[in-house]
C-alpha cells in the first residue's frame, strides 16, 4: 500500500525549537488543567513521531501501538529501577522487533491483521496475568524520579515530558535526514529498487518496527507517571487507532505532521468532553474522511497550498 509520504524539510528544527521554548516559558503561568492537556500532548507527540517512522516513512501498518505504550508503562512500573524510563523503552523496542519479523513477509492488510492480533494479545495479557500486572485492578505507580530529583508537581512533570518529547522529535528528524530515513522511504516506494540499491529490507523493516515501538515504550514509561494506578484500559485497539489517526491527520511521513496531528488530537478529546460517548465515532470518522479526502494530512495541505 503506498501512502503519500511528505518527506521532511531541512529547517524542521527551527519551528520545533520555537514551540519548545514557547511552551517552557508559559508553562508556569498555566493552570493545572491546561498543563495536564499539554503534558498529554507531549506524550502523544512522542508516540505519533515514532509511529510515523514506521507507518509514514517506511509504509508499514501497525494497529498495535497502544500495546507498545502499555509494555513500556508496565515494564517501568514493574521494574522500578532508576533508569526505568529507558528500560520501558528498550523492552517495548524488543517487542517491536519481534513484531517486525512477521512484517518481513507481509504487506498491507495481512500486516495490519498481525499487528491487530498482537495488540489484542498484549491487552489480554495485561488483563489476565494478574501476578505480573495486577489484572484489571492494576498496579500502583511509584513517583517519578531521576536520581535524586523527584518529580512531584505537575509543572516539573510537564518539563520532563516537554524535554523528552523535544529530544525524541529531534532525534527522529536526524534519523529521517540521513541514509536511514532515505532507506525507510525507499522501502515504502519500491522494495525491489531499494534492495537493488543495497538496502537490506529485513534489517530496515525490523529497525523501523523496533524504533517506533521504542518511542511508544518511552512514552509509556512517561505515561504511567500521570496515572496513580496503571490498568489495562488505556492500551486497547481504539487507542491504537487514535494514534494512527494522529499521523493521518497531521501528515504521514512528516515530523511536523506528527507533532501537529498529535497536538490537535490531544486537544480534541478535551473539547469533546461533553460528547464522551461519541468519541470513538468522531475519531473513526475523522480517520476515514482524511484517508479518503486529505491523505496528505493537514501539513500536507499546507505545503501544497504554499508550495514548499
Amino acid at each position: 500500500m503506498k501512502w503519500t509520504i511528505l518527506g521532511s524539510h531541512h529547517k524542521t528544527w527551527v519551528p520545533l525549537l520555537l514551540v519548545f521554548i514557547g511552551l517552557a516559558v508559559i508553562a508556569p503561568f498555566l493552570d493545572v488543567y491546561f498543563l495536564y492537556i499539554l503534558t498529554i500532548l507531549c506524550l502523544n507527540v512522542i508516540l505519533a513521531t515514532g509511529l510515523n517512522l514506521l507507518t509514514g516513512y517506511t509504509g508499514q501498518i501497525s494497529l498495535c501501538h497502544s500495546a507498545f505504550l502499555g509494555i513500556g508503562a508496565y515494564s517501568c512500573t514493574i521494574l522500578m529501577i532508576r533508569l526505568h524510563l529507558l528500560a520501558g523503552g528498550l523492552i517495548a523496542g524488543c517487542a517491536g522487533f519481534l513484531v517486525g519479523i512477521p512484517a518481513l513477509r507481509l504487506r498491507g492488510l495481512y500486516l495490519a491483521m498481525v499487528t491487530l492480533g498482537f495488540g489484542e494479545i498484549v491487552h489480554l495479557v495485561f488483563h489476565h496475568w494478574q501476578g505480573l500486572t495486577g489484572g484489571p485492578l492494576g498496579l500502583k505507580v511509584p513517583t517519578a524520579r531521576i536520581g535524586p530529583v523527584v518529580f512531584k508537581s505537575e509543572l516539573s512533570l510537564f518539563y520532563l515530558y516537554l524535554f523528552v518529547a523535544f529530544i525524541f522529535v529531534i532525534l527522529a528528524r536526524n534519523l529521517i535526514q540521513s541514509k536511514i530515513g532515505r532507506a525507510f522511504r525507499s522501502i515504502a516506494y519500491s522494495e525491489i529498487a531499494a534492495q537493488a540499491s543495497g538496502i537490506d529490507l529485513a534489517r530496515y523493516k525490523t529497525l523501523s518496527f523496533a524504533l517506533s515501538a521504542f518511542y511508544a515504550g518511552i512514552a509509556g514509561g512517561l505515561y504511567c507517571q500521570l496515572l496513580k494506578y496503571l490498568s489495562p484500559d488505556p492500551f486497547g485497539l481504539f487507542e491504537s487507532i487514535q494514534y494512527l489517526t494522529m499521523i493521518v491527520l497531521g501528515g504521514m511521513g512528516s515530523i511536523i505532521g506528527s507533532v501537529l496531528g498529535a497536538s490537535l488530537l490531544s486537544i480534541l478529546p478535551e473539547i469533546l468532553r461533553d460528547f464522551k460517548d461519541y468519541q470513538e465515532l468522531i475519531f473513526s470518522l475523522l480517520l476515514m474522511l482524511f484517508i479518503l479526502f486529505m491523505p496528505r494530512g493537514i501539513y500536507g495541505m499546507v505545503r501544497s497550498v504554499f508550495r514548499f
Partner: protein
Amino acid sequence: MMLLQIDNLVKKFGGLTAVNDVSLSVAQGQIHSLIGPNGAGKTTLFHLVTRILKPDFGKITYQGINLLVAPPAKITSLGITRTFQTIELFSEMTVLENVLVGYHTLIHAGPLSSALRFRGFFAEENRAREKSLEILRVVGMEDYQKDRAGSLPLGQRRLVELARALVIEPTLLLLDEPASGLNLAETNKLMRIIRHLKDQQGMTILLVEHNMRLVMEISDQVSVLNHGVKIAEGPPSSIKNDPSVIEAYLGSEKKSMGNEEC
C-alpha cells in the same frame, strides 16, 4: 577471465520454463546486449543475476566468485547495479534523494550515529551529495535535483534511474530496456552516455534492449534469447543476418510474407 559467467541456468515458474539451460559469458569492459522477443526470459535472467530470483539449476560466477551465495542486498557492494524495465523510482522523493539512495552502501553511519550526528556523519553526507550531483551532471539532470522524481517525463526518469545505478561506480551495470519509450534525441543521448561509461570508465555493461539500432551500434557482443533458450550469439554483424534470429522475431509471418530465405 570473464567478468560474469553464467552456466546452464534454469528457472521455472510452475509449468513454464522461463530460462532454459542458458550459458553466457560477459567479458570485462565490453557492452554485451541481450535481445529476443517479449517473454524470452531476458528480465528473468537479470533477476537471477541480481539474486531477486533463485535459479533451479546452474551457476553464476562473478569475478571468479560464486554469486549464488550472495543475498540480494549484497549485490550492490559487489559492484553490480541495475535499472528496471518498469522504472522503479522513488516517486515522491527528489531526484537528488533517489541518487543518494543509490549511494547507500558507501555510507557507513548506523542508526545511532545518524540520530546523534557523530563526527563522521556530515563528512559522509557531504561526500554522498557531491558524488550524486556529479553523476547527475554526467546524465544531464543536475538542474532537476530538487524535483519530485515522479513528476518528470519518462525520458528524464530513465536518466534518474541510470544516475542512481551509476553513483557507486559499478563494475557491472545491468540495463533493462533503457531506451524503452525514448525519442530519437533521448536515445542518441543514452548511447553517448553508455559509450562514455565503457570508454572512459572501463565499465562492463549488460544490456537488454528491443531498439535494434542502439543494439547494433554500441554492442561488442550480442546474445539472442527466445522462449528461454539462447539461439544465437556473436558480434552485431553476425546477428543481424542470422536466420534463426530473424525467424524468432518475425515468426510465421515470414513464410506468409515470402521474403528472407525459406
